[in-house]
């Protein structure tokens, strides 16, 4: 009954891990941005992703358009929603103790999930598109996951370019390095916060669109992504944006390898244990600098 592990199997799960990891990195980058700039852990990040997934589903249903083409629409819509959330609620807890922001965004999270249940029902939905896989040697590559990997990698790269070399992107980085100096540089920190929340939500939406084509959609699909994203940014070093990439790939691989070597049941626990261990050894994450 014990399955003998072969190199092919290990290769296959490493492929799965890397494909998943890029997606993790992109979604987590959104959470990392908000945490880096405002020190807020946005528990509603996953539910925003869920909304993105529904956006893709309904657009695909209504127009029959290639679901990947809905990406700009869902990202734009969630960008706006993110800005509104920040404007209406989150800005009030930016400097409050962490309990306030955790709870506030948790409240937003369950409200969003419940609204989705009311609006869309709890019925499972799926975007049946690109379901097959192709083979390369002994390995199977899921087409939808491969596309998700490529798009996520491209968007993540785009986000890095934006942060690295545009005026607004630099303002976001500046704000996360020192809010005080950013203000005296003339940066409207409130606006940067709005922009950051909007961008982060757009990244969640992109995740939602890509995931919609991979797994079935339902209102509660999001929460798990909040926690995975948090794992990713802690592993990579909170506030360190390239760290999200490292953390995402690491989490993807660890989860997959754990479910191969142990069982699927334990893989979630392994990820959390890894988190606590990393925090204890390097409180600022794998790529993080000295904690201040």
């Amino acid at each position, binding site marked *: 009954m014990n399955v003998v592990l072969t190199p092919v199997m290990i290769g296959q799960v490493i492929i799965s891990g890397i494909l998943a990891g890029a997606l993790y990195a992109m979604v987590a980058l959104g959470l990392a941005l908000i945490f880096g700039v405002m*020190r807020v*852990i946005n528990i509603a990040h996953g539910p925003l992703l869920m909304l993105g997934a529904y956006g893709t589903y309904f657009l695909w249903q209504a127009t029959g358009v290639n679901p990947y083409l809905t990406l700009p629409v869902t990202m734009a819509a969630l960008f706006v929603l993110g800005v509104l959330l920040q404007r209406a*609620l989150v800005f*009030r*807890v930016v400097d*409050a*103790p*962490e*309990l*306030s922001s*955790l*709870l*506030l965004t*948790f*409240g*937003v*999270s*369950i*409200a*969003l*999930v*419940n*609204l989705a*249940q*009311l609006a869309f029902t709890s019925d499972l939905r799926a975007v049946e598109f690109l379901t097959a896989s192709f083979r390369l040697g002994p390995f199977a590559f899921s087409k939808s996951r491969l596309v998700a990997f490529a798009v996520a990698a491209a968007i993540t790269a785009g986000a890095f370019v934006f942060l690295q070399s545009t005026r607004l992107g630099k303002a976001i980085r500046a704000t996360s390095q020192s809010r005080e100096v950013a203000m005296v540089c003339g940066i409207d920190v409130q606006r940067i916060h709005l922009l950051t929340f909007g961008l982060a939500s757009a990244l969640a939406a992109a995740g939602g669109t890509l995931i919609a084509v991979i797994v079935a959609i339902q209102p509660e699909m999001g929460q798990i992504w909040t*926690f995975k994203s*948090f*794992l990713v940014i*802690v592993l990579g070093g909170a506030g360190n944006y390239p760290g999200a990439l490292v953390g995402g790939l690491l989490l993807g691989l660890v989860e997959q390898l754990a479910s191969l070597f142990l*069982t699927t*049941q*334990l893989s*979630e*626990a392994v990820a*959390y*244990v890894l*988190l*606590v261990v990393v*925090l*204890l050894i390097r*409180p600022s994450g794998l790529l993080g600098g000295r904690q201040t």
Partner: protein
Amino acid sequence: MSARRPMVLVLIAVGLAALAAYPTVGTGYGVRAMLQLFMWIALAGSWNLVSGLTGYVSFGHVAFFGIGSYATAILITRAAWPWLPASLAGGVAAAVLALVIGYPCLRLKGPYFAIAMLGLNEVLRVLVSYFEGLTGGGLGLSLPTLQATLPIYYVMGATAAAVTLLTYLILTSRFGLRLMTIREDEIAAEALGIDTFRHKLSALLLSAVGPGIVGGLAARDQGYIEPISVFPLATTITMIVMVLFGGKGTVWGPVLGAAVLFVFQEAVWARFIYLHQLLFGAIIIAVVLLMPRGVLGLLQLKYRLPRTI
């Protein structure tokens, strides 16, 4: 203060007597609803002990409830213990767990501690499912049928009272002051010679016992437990919101918060089946934004009242 003291004690005594007499007049549902309220008071009060006093936000406090449930259920089903000692053993199991996870996690600060606790709750749920030889895994544990709602009502009530009394004793002691120094300024506390780590650990330990016991009582009363129903994140959040609403760091805040929110929850869910989650979310947001200090916290600050209100 000293003049008012006997009056307060009389009030408390009358209240307790009324609660003790309630089952003779209440319906089965009323008794069970009160029993649930006691459970929430014990849970909220316990969370307040660690997070309200030391400021270390436990986002995984339901883990102690869950481990208490399982310890009790295992002792009852596998070792045929009577439910009362088994529930108390649930409290002990929770305290042991608090030691084991507090030891690494209390070295973390701020949101890291909060999320690590949350993560460990998940890990625990997974482990409970995994070690199915002992726990029945996903099958859960079904306890032998027993009608003991009434004695459980009293023990649950006693636990809630004990947690509240413990809060009072701690808040009025120098041990309690030292716990609060951790919330106020951990570095200064340490520099003054307070072993902050040991104090945090003690607080976590004390705050674990109550949930462990009520977890055991709830398991016994319900007769069936499974991993997903005893480790839900929503329970932790509910405790936190109750404490925040009533006023964290006070004696009666958790009691008030638990009573108001529980009654509200019971009143709302029957009427707005599809909206209650939404309302719960709205309540959380409202409490965080409008009254982060809670009802009693505001009164305390405004009228310079002692924390024992």
